[in-house]
């Protein structure tokens, strides 16, 4: 499948990045996400149970970031195994920009699915993936706008450390966000 879109988030880039840096916020925004954790430099593991219609499967995802070029873009690639349901793998090119005080996140996802997912769902993937991407951003925006959901950690992040695009051990927050997006796209592709 191929999916490309832009998402305008009605918040300053500072505020968006701060919230996106909160892995707990991301976990909550993504339906069915049980865990999302670092597994090495620029590598992450996630466990996600996804259900669409009659198909329910638990996916183990491994993703890796490359071509990291803060704060303008990077490539993220990964693979998810869903047991008997099959597999999903793919990559996404991501671009971030500021626009009239809001943040626009543009993404292009290319993903392949295999096994039962391809056999039964190939034709449904694109539509379902788009629908669920919208759902993710809806959740995310809700979490972002409701006071009190932001943890102390994200509040601290909002103070400015990460906004400066800190090089080194911690990744820019938008990387987390787009990693989640890719995972989301893969899962959507997988379960669609």
């Amino acid at each position, binding site marked *: 499948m191929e999916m490309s879109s832009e998402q305008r988030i009605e918040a300053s880039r500072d505020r968006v990045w701060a919230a996106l840096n909160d892995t707990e916020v991301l976990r909550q925004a993504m339906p069915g996400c049980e865990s999302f954790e670092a597994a090495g430099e620029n590598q992450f593991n996630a466990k996600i149970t996804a259900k669409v219609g009659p198909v329910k499967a638990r996916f183990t995802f491994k993703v890796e970031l490359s071509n990291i070029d803060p704060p303008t873009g990077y490539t993220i690639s990964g693979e998810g195994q869903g047991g008997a349901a099959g597999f999903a793998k793919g990559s996404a090119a991501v671009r971030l920009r500021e626009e009239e005080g809001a943040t626009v996140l543009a993404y292009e996802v290319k993903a392949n699915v295999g096994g039962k997912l391809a*056999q039964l769902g190939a*034709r449904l993937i694109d539509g379902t993936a788009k629908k669920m991407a919208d759902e993710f951003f809806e959740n995310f925006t809700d979490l972002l706008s409701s006071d009190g959901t932001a943890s102390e950690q994200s509040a601290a992040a909002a103070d400015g450390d990460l906004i400066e695009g800190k090089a080194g051990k911690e990744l820019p927050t938008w990387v987390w966000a787009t990693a989640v997006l890719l995972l989301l796209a893969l899962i959507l592709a997988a379960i669609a």
Partner: protein
Amino acid sequence: MADNGIGASVRRKEDNRFLLGKGNYTDDINVAGQTYAVFVRSPHAHATLDSIDTSAAQAAPGVLAVFTGDDLAADGIGPLICGVTVTSDDGEPHRAPMHPALAQGKVNYVGDHVAVVIAESLAQARDGAELVQVDYGVLPAVTDTATAADGSQQQIHEVAPDNMCFNWPFGDKEAVDAAFDAAHKVSTLDLINNRMVTNPMEPRAALGEYNSGSEEITLHLTTQNPHVHRLVLSAFNQLAPEHKLRVVGPDVGGGFGAKIFVYAEELVVGWACRKVNRPVKWTADRTEAFLADAHGRDHVATAEMAMDENGKFLAMRVNTRANLGAYLSTFGTMVPSYLYAFLLAGQYATPLIYSEVKAVFTNTAPVDASRGAGRPEATFLLERLVDVCAADMGLDPAEIRRRNFIPTDAFPYQTPVVQCYDSGDYHAALEKALSLADYEGFAARAEEARSRGKRRGIGLSSYVEACGIAPSAAVGQLGGGVGLWESAQVRFNPTGNVQVFTGTHSHGQGHETTFAQLVCDQLGVPIENIEVIHGDTAKTQFGMGTYGSRSLAVGGVAIAKACDKLIAKGKKIAAHALEAAEGDIEFADGSFAVAGTDKAMSIGEVAFNAYVPHSYPEGVEPGFDENAFFDPLNFSFPAGTHICEVEVDPDTGVVDIVRYSAVDDFGKLINPMIVEGQVHGGIAHGVGQALLECARYGDDGQLLTASYMDYAMPRADNLPSFDVDYAPTDPPDNPLGVKGCGEAGAIGAPPAVINAIVNALGVKHIDMPATPENVWRAAKSAA
């Protein structure tokens, strides 16, 4: 009684149980202690098997065992075989890669068998299968028939450089090339034959039981040929000695070829039931059927015809690439070779034919026989080419056929491609079909349709096929590992009813009725007193099964020969009882009579005498039970002309088949109603291929059409009411005067439909399936 004999449209005896839900299919059978098998299948088209960790699955609740290819190999089981050799142009036999029932080291198509989980319940087996951890090293996939062997693709098997299974030229290339050089006109056509999933209604299933006391394995299978299964599983797969293996094919819900072959699942279930010492059942779900049943067709070809100034065919040249899939299925090599190239003459007296077939391996499901097997491919190519020839010469499609048909007085006719047609009258069938279809009135109908914004087209297809498979000597010469005779046993019980054991099988064609009619007609026994028994190696002595429209033409003759033996023996018994000379006994309508007298006894009385031989002729054995074997002298050559008329909506590309006329030569009909049903079903199959069906793999080797969401089968609203008639000839090589009818529709229909669409749109060609999108694009390009 003659009411139910040859020529009567007797209602099908078996329909009572089929229509009332009382059929007995493999999955209907459940036995005490039964366990369930689920196969772990590769999600990748091409990958190395780097590791298989079965420990979690082994420990899962209810799981009895998890087996992999190593376990099968350790027991010396397998590999699966291909039974027909084709010699490649380098003089070597076709390349035959190892085909393990459970993969070893590598998987070669999506759905390939990696492991099997045996558990107490189906749900537990499925859960267990989820826990088998497999590390795959993904390799590039090869899926495209045209380019698989052009040297640009990843090699799949070590033994098959460039993915070539065989390159098989046939015919006098020099003479053909010379004829082309001297020709007035050459017509050329590139075409594909779309890949089909055979789709019998009942998915494949297997139930294995091991009796540790008798050391016998009983395997219930969805099979068209139980004895062939037993022979191959025993002699080549080392499952068990033949006398310790019983294969039963109970009711079979459609086969169309897909249930001929010996599949991995069947071998594994047979082996696993002994391994776990419990009955093991496996039933395919529909997606497994799409993935792992042998597929059909999948050719890419170029066809050329050289003609003189009158449109007379001088020579034909055909270059074909045939996709055999990832491994060779049981008869995979035979379909695009002997069953294809030897039919390329069709109904025409083309003196010179040269064919070159390159059979290739790809990372797709194995390809093998599917209703028609090779003959639909040959017929589609030829009948499309003939229409292109007609257009190029400015001749009517009917006229170019007339000019090139084999003359009716030329039979038996030796074609330049091996086959010798024993009988046929192609002109008669064509003229009858033209009349049935009101060919003359087409122009007016087309005009009227145009006034409604529709494009009306008419298409002809004059096919011939070779069935009644097959003379054993011919099969042997061609590199086949079997004889294709048939056997029968006709047994009177002492009370006068009759059991007919046939080595053929039925997967829905109504043999229980047709064969009973044969016996009823010949022996004069009421049809309700005749039972036809098939499908069990423990009941019938041997047999080759059902495919290639052979059951009546070969198996029926064996039954008739057994009846002849009973009559001959009956005459001796009756002569003794009636105190007459054996030579004076005449048999007719179930009665042995002394010629010229009113002294007679019924065949039932004779049978009773044979079992209670108190007063009995000397030297005659008791019992009234005869065996016969029949090895056909030749193939059988049904032929006919089908005419399809369509209306195309140029704005939507939707094709409506508004009229379909079929005139076939099946020789003598035993049950016209059953024959008509076979014709209807065959045409529906052919319409499915022409308009709807296509198995598609993505470039990565994923099967994208693995459910009825994405693979379109024909439905009632795709089909008109058919006009069916016959133009029979008497085949001298068949003792019953019969030909086969089961595949004819699937062979004749696709070119008739496509020729009609091409005619409607005024284009040169349109590939199958002619979906609305394809037709719409073709209409746009023509406009």
